[in-house]
């Protein structure tokens, strides 16, 4: 297979560097650790459809990052785009909200097991921050318990001491526990009696550079019980997992009920909307926090969200994503094993994490990922991946072919691996 060339991406990046901080900032940028080495990756997309995107050099990629989660049905899904277009012809950002806002909230309350109400914003970080404020408003307490290495967006309270631009006071109310560690949570509750407003976590642990970890047996039930007993608001950050594991919410998937649950990413198949859903007893506290934004009432994303949720139900998306994820990951691990490589799969299969375990520095893994990208399969180095419903059996077969060729290329770079298998 002939590796891709990225001439136009590089030229565009040079232009971007002159007028945009870091050229491409944030999680889509080439300096945030997901594109190693940068020369193996495209930087700009020209178009996208279904399971693919094409970069500005015309290279096609099967996209296993799905825009870091929003693409769940396939890019430019006809049904979703049609609903968005129809609403767009009526109006989008207007002085008053549309009927679509109410319809979307009703649909979410009907769909999400723990939801009695829904509130809309734009990004995942908008609703995790709002959830924290509601918890404080409802409890009159300041402290929040977070899981070490968890991710809840980029607001100041989500950051760590020493991060650029962060004052120590902004994170002074944060307390941390390790994932799956009930003992640490109990100890914090004892150490800060009546001071903890909330416990916030993703449904399972999705750290980068490390294997993802599922909740241990009864973990969530124990957390739920502790939170209820001590008046602590249980917030589930379902921004990344939402609707991929269970349309009724990932808390439902793991057999418990959150007090507040945050959605974004897959909610509207790429249209810009996020949602916070919650229990009735927190509705008044939610109303008491003044929280809004210029585009938070836009009707087009609501229409897209309604179409997305209806289609996800119609195609039984979580089951389909699970089947596709299972076929893909078992195939990848099998191809790796054929080369004597130990490719570890972790997390939930619709959004699996993978790591070559032969090399603790993960340099070998980075070289293999780079070789896959150069051959048209878009993985990133150290983030969980995403399956979308437009992925086909042929796409999986092609992915496995690429993975095989990439392993061969990596082994050529490492004569010490040639002897294995």
């Amino acid at each position: 297979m002939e590796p891709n060339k990225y001439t136009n991406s590089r030229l565009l990046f040079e232009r971007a560097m002159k007028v945009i901080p870091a050229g491409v900032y944030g999680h889509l940028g080439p300096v945030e650790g997901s594109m190693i080495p940068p020369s193996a990756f495209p930087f700009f997309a020209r178009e996208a459809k279904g399971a693919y995107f094409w970069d500005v050099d015309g290279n096609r990629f099967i996209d296993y990052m799905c825009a870091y989660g929003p693409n769940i049905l396939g890019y430019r899904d006809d049904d979703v785009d049609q609903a968005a277009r129809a609403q767009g012809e009526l109006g989008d950002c207007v002085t008053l909200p549309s009927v679509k806002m109410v319809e979307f909230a009703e649909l979410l309350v009907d769909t999400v097991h723990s939801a009695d109400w829904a509130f809309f914003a734009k990004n995942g970080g908008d609703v995790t921050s709002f959830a924290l404020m509601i918890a404080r408003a409802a409890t009159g307490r300041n402290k929040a318990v977070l899981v070490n290495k968890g991710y809840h967006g980029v607001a100041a309270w989500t950051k760590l001491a020493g991060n650029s631009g962060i004052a120590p006071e902004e994170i002074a109310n944060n307390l941390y526990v390790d994932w799956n560690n009930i003992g640490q949570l109990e100890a914090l509750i004892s150490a800060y009696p009546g001071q903890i407003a909330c416990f916030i976590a993703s449904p399972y642990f999705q750290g980068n550079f490390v294997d993802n970890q599922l909740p241990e047996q009864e973990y969530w039930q124990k957390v739920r019980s502790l939170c209820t007993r001590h008046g602590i608001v249980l917030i589930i950050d379902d921004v990344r997992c939402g609707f991929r594991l269970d349309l009724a919410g990932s808390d439902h998937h793991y057999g418990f009920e959150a007090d507040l649950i945050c959605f974004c990413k897959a909610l509207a198949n790429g249209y810009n909307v996020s949602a916070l859903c919650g229990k009735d007893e927190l509705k008044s506290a939610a109303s008491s926090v003044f929280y809004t934004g210029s585009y938070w009432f836009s009707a087009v994303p609501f229409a897209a969200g309604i179409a997305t949720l209806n289609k996800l139900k119609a195609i039984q998306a979580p089951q389909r994503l699970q089947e596709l994820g299972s076929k893909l990951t078992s195939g990848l691990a099998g191809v790796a094993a054929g080369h004597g490589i130990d490719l570890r799969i972790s997390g939930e299969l619709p959004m699996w994490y993978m790591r070559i375990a032969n090399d603790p520095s993960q340099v070998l893994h980075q070289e293999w990922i780079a070789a896959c990208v150069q051959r048209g399969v878009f993985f990133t180095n150290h983030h969980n991946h995403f399956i979308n419903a437009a992925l086909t059996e042929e796409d999986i077969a092609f992915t496995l072919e690429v993975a095989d060729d990439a392993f061969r290329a990596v082994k050529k770079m490492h004569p010490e691996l040639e002897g294995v298998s």
Partner: protein
Amino acid sequence: MPVIESAKASVHGTKAAVNLYAVLRNLEELCRLDPASIALIQGKRNTIRFKIRGGPAADLIIAGGDVTMQEPAGASSIVLYFRSPEHFNKMIEGKSNPIPLRGLSRLGFLTTDFTKLTQRLEYYLKPDGGLLKDADYFAIHTRLLLNTAAYAVACIGNYDEIGRRIAARIPDGVISISIEESGQQVFLHAMKGRLQAMKSAPAVPSAYMVFDTVQSANDVLSEKADVHELIVTERLKLKGMLPMIQHMNDILAKVPQFV
């Protein structure tokens, strides 16, 4: 080098550690690279102990045409005492004098040869624009700059309050920082939140930060270049366990506060 408990949260304590372990340590390298410095220590034999009340300590050993810095051990020919980390920092800035406790008969060495050595160090660490055009000067200047940065990161990670919280997040292992063109390589060993800078690796590195040229390294270390651009163009290559480098960079960003 030992961490002095009382100095952990003190800005002066951190600065004293940086001045001693990162800045003054450059005399080791300087006396291998700079002919004028080499000439100053030829035939000289002295151990200078820096003793800072409530702060770091080290022996600077001048013997056999070499300078080495190590933890205080055994006898020393000269003991320089400082009443506080602040006192030591003022001495480094040329605004105060040490209190010699031992080695009064060797004060001549301190006031002549050693002073000249520290002046050579300043000459290389604080360049004026014209000097940077000289290739030999530029090479030594950059080499010392990289060493200073690596050792300063270790000091800040061990002494400064925020630095210690960042260091605690660095996964155990070794970070290699190198310049392909010159072959210079320094290492930062992280172990349970303690950092140690060194010039030879105690284990296979887990993360790599590789500058292609001396110029690229200098551009980043002297904050003349956009580091993002260097990474994307692969003049600065990063690979391996990047969280180690990302957390280290949070400490690196604090170095100008202390140097």
